[in-house]
């Protein structure tokens, strides 16, 4: 009875959504997205045509995330920091000589293949993550993505080499200092605008030529990207440490 009820209500839901979706404008039509008229005739929106000159980065998505919608991303960075604080409030931070992990005492031995491949691949994964962070302005990439790749490399390391080795490489006291770095970099870069006579999170200042302004904006965006990447990596590694360990009672 319950099953039938669930089935029919889901079917109803799907049907309503299907009718709505089918009547939407055809996918991929330039006119339907308020992007342009027919290709080659109408001008493209301002953030696409002028974004490089106004915001300082070739990658329009980076322009939008860090410059046009900078306040939004500032809040988002605070959200992941808040998530870390909430996780730590629920689970507590790992403690020396008290916390341990089951994987180390497990009778299943880790495979030589996995161990070797991870050891060979880790430096390349980290190199790739640096590329993704630093090329966030001119190509696909950015702070969040690169930071997540670094965190993924740290998590692979901890899973393969064990909790105690991971604690040696990423000690809690050392990680604690850098977890807030993402919102702090953002706020620091935003406040520069206030000191130079503009609003919070402005990257264009009076009294500079356009070229030097562009260079300034670009380097500030890059510093924010590096801050977000580092902060994200530390936050996700800390969340993983907090979740993985158990405490001796």
């Amino acid at each position, binding site marked *: 009875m319950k099953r039938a009820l669930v089935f029919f209500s889901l079917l109803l839901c799907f049907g309503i959504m299907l009718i709505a*979706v089918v009547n939407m404008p055809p996918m991929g039509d330039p006119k339907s*997205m308020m992007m*342009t008229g027919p290709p080659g005739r109408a001008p493209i929106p301002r953030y696409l045509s002028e974004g490089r000159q106004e915001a300082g980065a070739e990658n329009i998505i980076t322009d939008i995330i860090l410059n046009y919608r900078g306040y939004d991303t500032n809040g988002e960075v605070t959200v992941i920091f808040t998530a870390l604080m909430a996780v730590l409030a629920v689970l507590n931070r790992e403690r020396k000589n008290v916390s341990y992990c089951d994987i180390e005492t497990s009778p299943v031995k880790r495979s030589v293949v996995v161990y070797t491949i991870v050891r060979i691949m880790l430096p390349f994964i980290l190199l790739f993550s640096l590329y993704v962070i630093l090329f966030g302005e001119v190509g696909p990439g950015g702070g969040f993505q690169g930071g997540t790749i670094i965190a993924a490399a740290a998590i692979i390391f901890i899973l393969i080499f064990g909790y105690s080795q991971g604690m040696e490489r990423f000690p809690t006291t050392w990680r604690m200092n850098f977890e807030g770095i993402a919102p702090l970099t953002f706020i620091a870069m935003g406040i520069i605008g206030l000191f130079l006579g503009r609003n919070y999170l402005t990257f264009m200042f009076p009294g500079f030529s356009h070229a030097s302004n562009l260079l300034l904006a670009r380097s500030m965006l890059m510093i924010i990207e590096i801050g977000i990447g580092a902060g994200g990596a530390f936050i996700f590694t800390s969340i993983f440490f907090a979740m993985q360990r158990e405490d001796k009672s």
Partner: protein
Amino acid sequence: MSLSLFLSKMGTNFNYVVAITLFTIGLYAVVAKNNLIKKFIGLNIMETSCFLLYISMGAVKGGRAPIWTEGMKKTTLFVNPIPQALILTGIVVAVSTTSLALSLMIKIYEHCGTLDAEKLKRMETE
């Protein structure tokens, strides 16, 4: 609307149809499964389907990635970058909520010894 017109429109909006199918699968997991982790996997599938819907709405046929390189003119057709920027925010928030929910589940399991929603409800009423 005739059936053939309906089907052809479904073909042009294929990504949207896939997105709502994923949404329904996620909704099924949330509604019908008892295990809290399975419920949350369902919620994550729903989130992913929303991301797919938004990214598809930003797509433009023949459009390029919104990155300026050599030889691009003001008339070049780009994909709409706004949904992509929006969904980047969405993904980060989804990860944050996932980590918080999983840590809460760890605590629930430590205290109650089960993740079954029905059993937890019975414990609550007792």
